[in-house]
């Protein structure tokens, strides 16, 4: 019955109200700002304009089934999310571990590593677009100087490399976030288990595997959870880097939703797609939470 220990004491009658008072503001704000949009989206996703005015129908959802663009976009989105998440997590964890130890000037390192995350996404997109330019870009330029043949390295212009390129940019920009959270998590782990582990003769790796990871699990799952959700909604950088091109190679669901909503002003269909995305995200996060729960 460990769960019971999670709580300081059974909330006793005089305190019964406190927790509710504490969550109330949060719930209020979120209700206010999420319920209305949700209802709105539900209604318009169930409506369709026809010659004879607006009618209620499941048309938007039916259309999903036959929409090839939608399917491809979904695939791209998940590929993007999975690959990016994997890289960001591995790199972020690695850095967090490195900088959790005594290194001279780690304060400076820590702060500097956060810089990519601090740039406005708009700017990030533009800067990388410039750097990735096959002909004038700094990257190919530098590679050329190093004697690499860059003829075929057309990054965002090649259907093969484009997705990788945009993923790379995402990794570059968001690894710092993973790093930041995991570092904070590491900082929260007390020293004693580590000393015990040393005494018990466990190697660096074993200590990492059996002590650090388990104790870091809550932080890890939270960061994965949040990143996944953001990755599944990724929009800005791609929009600026490739607008989904070339030939749909980097079109993600959010881009497609954006186009449908804003360019083709078909909000109903956009909402419909969003619900699918919402559902999927929900599934994913519930899976994470399963894992998270047995931590507590």
């Amino acid at each position, binding site marked *: 019955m460990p*769960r019971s220990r999670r*709580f*300081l004491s*059974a*909330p006793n009658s005089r305190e019964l109200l406190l*927790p*509710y008072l*504490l*969550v109330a*503001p*949060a*719930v209020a704000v*979120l209700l206010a*700002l*999420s319920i*209305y*949009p949700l209802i*709105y989206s539900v209604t318009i996703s169930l409506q369709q304009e026809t010659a004879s005015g607006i009618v209620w129908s499941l048309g938007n959802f039916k259309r999903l089934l036959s929409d090839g663009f939608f399917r491809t976009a979904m695939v791209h989105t998940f590929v993007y999310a999975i690959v990016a998440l994997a890289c960001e997590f591995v790199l972020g964890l690695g850095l967090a571990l*490195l*900088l959790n130890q*005594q*290194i*001279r000037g*780690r304060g400076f390192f820590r702060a*500097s590593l956060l*810089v*990519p*995350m601090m*740039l*406005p996404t*708009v*700017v990030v997109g*533009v*800067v990388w677009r*410039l750097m990735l330019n096959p002909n*004038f870009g*700094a990257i190919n330029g*530098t590679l050329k100087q190093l004697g690499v043949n860059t003829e075929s390295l057309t990054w965002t212009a090649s259907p093969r490399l484009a997705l990788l390129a945009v993923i790379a940019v995402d990794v*570059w920009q968001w690894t710092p976030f993973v790093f*930041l959270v995991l*570092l*904070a998590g590491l900082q*929260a782990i*007390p*020293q004693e288990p580590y000393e015990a582990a040393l005494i018990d003769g466990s190697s660096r790796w074993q200590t990492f595997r059996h002590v650090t990871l388990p104790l870091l699990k*809550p*932080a890890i799952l*939270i960061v994965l*959870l*949040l990143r996944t959700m953001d990755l599944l*909604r990724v*929009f800005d950088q791609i929009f*600026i880097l490739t607008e989904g091109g070339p030939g749909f190679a980097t079109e993600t669901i*959010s881009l497609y939703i954006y186009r449908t*909503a804003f360019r083709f002003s078909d*909000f109903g269909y*956009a909402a419909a797609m969003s619900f699918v995305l*919402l559902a999927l995200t*929900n599934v994913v996060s519930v899976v994470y939470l399963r894992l998270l729960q047995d931590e*507590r």
Partner: protein
Amino acid sequence: MRDRRGGILQTGLVVLALVLALAPVYWMITISLKTEVDQFASPPKWFTFTPTLQHYYDAFVTRSFGQYLLTSAIVAVVSTACALTIGTLAAYALTRFRLPYGLDRRLSLWILSTRMFPAIVTAVPLFLMMRDLRLLNTKASLIIVYTAFNLPFVVWMMRGFFAEVPRDIEEAALVDGDSRLGALVRVILPLVSPGLAATAVFCLIVSWNEFLFALVLTQTDAAMTLPVGIAGRVTQYEIKWGVMSAAGVVAMIPILVFALAMQRYLVRGLSLGAVKG
């Protein structure tokens, strides 16, 4: 006493990471100082070019970037503060109390799920909502939206960190006669300061850089934030690389300063040496 033989290797790796992280930023800075001809020069001019401040001039003198900066700052700081306060309280309640019907878990989940809906779709209804509330084109609208946008993040981060605080430290505070909130403020928050700092930094960054809502909910310079202002430099036929970069550099600095300030708290973790068992 950690054995320090890995030291050199570690430092090496960190430096490498640092280079990878900062090279593009450095490049951006150079771009902001280069004439167009140099921007596209190949082989790329990493170090040798004749700097010009023209782009900064274009960015900040000829357009109302100063105002954008101010707006951004206000919106970011206020919304971050709100999100942190509201979110931390909620997180505390959701970690420390068991509510009937597993309400504590359900609530947390719901709070999280509000972050899953694509902003693109919520943007329009929010626009209509703000219109009816007469809040369109005001800082208030952005503050509200960003607060709500950051809340789930704050709640979940803080839940994680609260869960790591040993019970009996907090119990001691209660026995010593402190109220729950008193204990929260005087004992628990100091212990989770790294987490708090990390969360704050992130919230600030998000609201500082957010683009879509800022675009949709504002109509004139009166409430435009920096990202929108910057995006304004992307024209139909050309991107003003220099001006964009200049703006980027300037946009980056305040956050950088903030993060450096937070850095202290990031370093200081829970020093649980004093807890037994």
